[in-house]
């Protein structure tokens, strides 16, 4: 395994320190418990806090800043953060209008954020993201996973919070976006968790994992590698099947997200095909985002996210944002 590591036990700390130094104009870092906040604390708004395991960078700390998150709590790699982190972060960024937690739907994240919410001394609410349509909701699944669609939720909820909206309104927007967003990922390789020292799963040079999760969890099916258009068509079909009637003549946001090791050149190729597939179905891509936004460390692969837009979502997607990973309008 070749990674930039000194001592694997210190890797997270060193990375967080470097992140804070690189973005010293935007973020502050606190250790023990670990959390990051905006450098300039906001006042008189709902505090938007998210978090999750490390390994998905820039999610979530990369999205701290005006127009998006107030704080982010990083857990160990692929491991949810713990309640003490969220409680400390909330105490640091609370701005008198309550706290909104944005949580990706995984058992660990849900339970740790739930316990934090129970213990928080402030009014609070939770938005659960569950945009992954690869694992179909049935009696055999514990709901859907939260993946790259989380970025859209964080952007728009962050935006509405800046307007002074109350806790209920912030949550309502987040829940609405989540309900009309669908994602699916595909892996060409596994990821390697540094502490584990070897790939999370085995996959041959001839196969792809359709519906892979952002922790390297196996997805729907192991399939044979084929040309890009065929893979992308399958992914778009899965997404459109999931979104159903919502996409009829709709305007959408198309997010092509790299899982870590796939080059931008390929991500844009994916966007090219995905946009064509959507157009063929009478769907207009009105907003776009391409890049590494919700990674799985070093996985070769990508995910596609489609969010059905309305005027409210467009307004909040377009609004100014100033974070390490996303910046426009400022």
């Amino acid at each position, binding site marked *: 395994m070749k990674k930039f590591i000194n001592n694997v036990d210190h890797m997270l700390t060193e990375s967080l320190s470097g992140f804070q130094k690189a973005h010293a104009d935007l973020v502050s870092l606190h250790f023990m418990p670990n959390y990051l906040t905006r450098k300039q604390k906001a006042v008189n708004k709902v505090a938007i806090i998210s978090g999750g395991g490390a390994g998905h960078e820039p999610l979530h700390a990369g999205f701290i800043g005006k127009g998006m998150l107030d704080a982010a709590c990083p857990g160990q*790699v692929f491991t949810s953060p*713990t*309640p003490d982190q969220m409680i400390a972060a909330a105490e640091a960024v609370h701005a008198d209008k309550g706290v909104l937690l944005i949580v990706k739907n995984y058992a*660990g994240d849900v339970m740790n954020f739930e316990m934090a919410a129970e213990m928080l001394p402030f009014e609070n609410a939770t938005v659960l993201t569950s945009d992954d349509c690869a694992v179909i909701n049935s009696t055999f699944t514990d709901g859907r996973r939260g993946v790259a669609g989380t970025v859209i939720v964080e952007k728009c909820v962050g935006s509405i919070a800046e307007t002074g909206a109350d806790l209920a309104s912030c949550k309502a927007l987040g829940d609405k976006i989540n309900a009309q967003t669908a994602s699916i990922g595909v892996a060409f390789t596994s990821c390697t968790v540094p502490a584990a020292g070897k790939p999370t799963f085995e996959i041959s040079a001839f196969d792809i994992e359709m519906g892979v999760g952002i922790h390297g*969890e*196996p997805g729907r099916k192991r399939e044979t590698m084929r040309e890009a258009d065929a893979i992308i068509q399958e992914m778009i079909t899965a997404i459109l099947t999931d979104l159903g009637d919502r996409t009829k003549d709709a305007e959408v946001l198309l997010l092509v997200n790299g899982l870590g090791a796939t080059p931008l050149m390929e991500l844009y190729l994916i966007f090219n095909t995905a946009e064509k597939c959507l157009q063929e179905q009478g769907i207009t891509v009105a907003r776009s985002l391409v890049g590494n936004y919700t990674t799985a460390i070093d996985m070769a692969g990508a995910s596609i996210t489609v969010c059905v837009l309305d005027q409210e979502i467009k307004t909040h997607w377009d609004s100014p944002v100033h974070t390490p990973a996303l910046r426009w309008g400022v």
Partner: protein
Amino acid sequence: MILQTDFILKAALSIQAAIITHKPDIEVLDQAIGDGDHFINVLRGADAIVSMSDELTGLPADEALNKIAIKLLSTIGGAAGPLFASFFMGMAKNIKQNGGHDTLAIAVAFAAGVQALIKRGKGKVGEKTMLDVLVPVAHTFIFSAIENKTVTAICTDIKTAAEDGLASTRDLIATKGRAAGLGERSIGHLDAGAKSCQVMIQAVCNLVVQPLF
């Protein structure tokens, strides 16, 4: 027997050692149908408890268990943290109310811990999780204690229940945790959480029947 903090500390050491010994068994399961971090998380928890021994020495058992719960909650992360923390909190609360003065009382406290864990994780037997070990063990512990079996016999019964519970996970379809969504591909593999619980229970039982000096 009476539940004493001294025993709890020795049990933590036994668990830590057993987890390390069984690392290959646990890891291979989590990689087959999980995401490979279960062992690291559980070991981190065991290390954390062992490092607390000075802080815990001399405390009543229920206070020790509570402190362990809070430490685990901030240390383990993932699903295991809240679940194990809830288990120890439930056990602590029961001992505080009823005392851990005899074997049956300890069995009931263990069951109360499992109950709290179930409440937090909203799981049940048959979903291919640690509950497939913990629930049968809780039943067996109480039933064997009711029958006034010897401590040695009870430990044998518990270890068997844990092994049987673990084996039962092989042919279940995972519906919780990171293996869920694998559907039928999760069949044929044991659950890593069930395995680590079986390893821990076995370690504690072995400690009870063969104390070191």
